[in-house]
């Protein structure tokens, strides 16, 4: 059953559990590879998580002269391969979302790999597993279709179609802020 990461921005409370969880993932050397930003910290407490969106045609991989960034058949865009990465940092510049980070000591790029060791076994990524607010969800395509229906596809989804600006189609889906999209109040 194919599943995907879905981000419901509105739900984020800025607890950064996803960051803490990311440090717990195997091979991450206790460093997180995802980010949470304060939208307007002097005004309110709105925060947004920023994870790798695992582009279908990722700029990071396209820009890599050493082909160090692999894309799995499930669509996960992996961290740079140690033996191939030449430390040129093209990927960090190419990514429109600012996801790949560079480890100066190891001369190596590292980024979210969608917890590939877990997701290939049908286990949700650590960030989505622990997210206490359901901001990050690991959902089936059927569940995603239901959400699209509810949120009136085309009105609110950001990463939806190939003609999308930025990097086009992504495997991770985002729902832009907007409370109660398509939901009628009960009474």
């Amino acid at each position, binding site marked *: 059953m194919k599943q995907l990461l879905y981000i419901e921005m509105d739900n984020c409370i800025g*607890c950064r*559990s996803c960051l803490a969880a990311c440090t717990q993932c195997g091979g991450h050397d206790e460093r997180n590879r995802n980010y949470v930003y304060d939208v307007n910290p002097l005004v309110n*407490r709105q925060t947004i998580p920023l994870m790798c969106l695992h582009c279908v045609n990722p700029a990071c991989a396209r820009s890599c002269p050493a082909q160090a960034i692999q894309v799995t058949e499930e669509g996960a865009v992996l961290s740079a391969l140690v033996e191939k990465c030449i430390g040129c940092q093209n990927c960090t510049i190419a990514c429109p979302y600012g996801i790949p980070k560079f480890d100066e000591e190891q001369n190596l790029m590292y980024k979210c790999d969608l917890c590939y060791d877990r997701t290939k076994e049908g286990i949700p990524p*650590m960030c989505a*597993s622990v997210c*206490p607010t*359901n901001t990050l969800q690991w959902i089936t395509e059927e569940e995603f279709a239901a959400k699209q229906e509810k949120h009136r596809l085309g009105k609110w989804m950001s990463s939806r179609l190939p003609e999308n600006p930025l990097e086009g189609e992504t495997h991770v889906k985002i729902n832009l802020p907007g409370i109660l999209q398509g939901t009628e109040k*009960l009474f």
Partner: protein
Amino acid sequence: MPKDKFFKVIENKVHPGEKLVPTHCSYCGMQCGMNLRVDTSSNTIIGVEPRYDWPVTLGKMCPKGVTAYQQTNHPDRILKPLIRDNPALKGTKEGFREASWDEAYDLIARRFKELQAEYGKDSLSVFSGVSMTNEKCYLTGKFARVALQTRYIDYNGRFCMSSAAAGFLRTFGVDRGSTLPWTDLHETDCLFIAGSNTAECHPTSMFRVWEVQSRGGYLIVADPRETPLARRADVHLDLRPGTDLALANCMVNLLIQGGYADENFIREHTGGFEEMAEVVKEFTPEYTSEITGVAPEKLIRAAEIYGKAPEAVVMFARGIEQQHKGADNVSAYTNMPLVTGKIGRPKSGVATFTGQGNGQGGREHGQKSDLLPGYRKITNPKHVEEVCKVWGITPEEMPQPGVSAYEMFELMEQKTIRGLYLLCSNPAVSAPNLNYVRKVMKELDFMVCSDMYLSESAEFADVILPSVTWSEDEGTVTNLEGRIIKINKAQEPLGESKPDWQIAVELAERLGRGQYFSHLKTARDVADEFRLATKGGYADYYGATWDKIEKQDGVFWPCKNEKDPGTPHMFLDKKFYHPDGKAKLCALPYRPPAEEPDETYPLRLTTGRVVYHYLSGNQTRRIPFLMDMCPEPYVEVHPETAAKYDIEHEEKVRLRTRRGECIYKVKITEAIRKDTVFVPYHFGHEGSVNLLTIPALDPMSRMPEFKVCAAEIDKLGAERPDGQAGRAGSGKTEKEAVHQ
């Protein structure tokens, strides 16, 4: 147990060479399910995996939960008993030397006996906490009364949960923090949440809260700050700190006026309606707005939403409870479901968020100065007799009721109390009016502290006993739903550390009271005696065996016998626990906070939590990830207020009250009221905001008023009116018009 819509069957990731030990988080009352990753070759905890099968939280964890395992093998752990021979060094980290358990026990037994011989049995005191298992809580109560034979035992729940307890006892005749299981929450139509920064304090409730809204239900939040919860509320009642009682009375008034009262329910199942209605009549939206600062139309809208909701849950937390009228606030908000009949059925009711891991169980089993196991009263001869039978003492031997936590410090100052056995608590950070509390702790004749780290309170001790973390012991705790759950052991105690129950048993033996304790060889032995001691009490755990807890994913109390599956929903039969079977609608006249802003202290100071730290921070301030996220305390100030004081974001200022002063970095945010400032309380030493808080106690629950006192900000580096350093020299009339 029923599974809810969020439940999915997910296999756990098991890494080679490891095993997973299912247990629960060491922190707040949510008690999120988690699996500890244990390296099988070294039997050491090395990480955490979500516990997807736990029905309450489904693997979800906050950043504290994810990193909780790092406590166990932390380099700061105390691994051997520590003794300090030079009392002049009390209040510092200095002067401790390692000792054997024998030496420590001998010293404690000798000093305790000396003090009691000279000043009487009641010269010793026990101050405990409720982040411990039920078994430890129970045994601590027994240890004080049977081994030390002192009346003076109380616990840090006085700083946390006692107002909820007192309010519920008065209203329902029983105190179970939630009348419904958490798996009901997302199915309700309206959540009315007062005084709870749920997103930061109980984050793993949030997926259920958001679900209410995404189903089309409503969220009403009463909070002085625009917390992440309030930010998305349908109605945010942004009241002045300390004015909840007026707001609750107004809600009840509007519910009655709006025709939302359930007259049948009121007649059949409650008492005191007329008197209560008379009191709340005064609280019109306009009058309430004057007191609370909340716009009348918001009050009207909130009452209308709650009134119309077919099912609704009223929830609250420390925001309304940590006031010198906390118990009244609890009863006043509880009037809402009682007046509308929205209680005693699934999806409707009232619930309080428990701050400490075992905030519910810990208050039921005899750590409180006036309580015995099973919520029995120490002043009730029948209750005393029941417990004496289990303990093997005579009712004459049972000590009298003592005093509450803060009042114990007052007795220490008066030298009525001369010795202290402190465990699982850090009052040198978490008590109000800390300058005073620290002074009296320093002057104690003899103090023993059981802790896993050298906490701020342990710095005042003569002897420190190394205790274990939650992952090195087993037992039960009761989460915020009233669900009894099992904590499992994942690793052997590090170094020479020992579980508190074992320390109590061994110490009792040294004190010559071994005959009452020596049969307790394992945590399970304590559990069996403990269940027996609660049998027939209000909080009856007798049927909650460890096997049943495992089989059922927890057991809700009361659970009276082997066949009883427990009680997830309270009052389904509409029977309350007062002798007439009715709940009491309480008539509660409004009282202002103990200290109102004035010319000298024109601001209101309120305190609370951040998501990265737990209570006094003794545990979480040692975890690198959490410290990276929130390394120091700060004071939240509204931009307009900051402009009046001529202070900027991240500038350091002096915050002052009648009790003391602290220096904090300013955090400017529109999420706070203009007349209020906020400081998180998780920090020790000079950063502790409790140096400033007021020890005004609730007459019923004896809870201090942490949530509001009058304060003033001084810009650093300028002259102060009293000639001392500090006052802003801008000559602005900053004191005027900071009130909203």
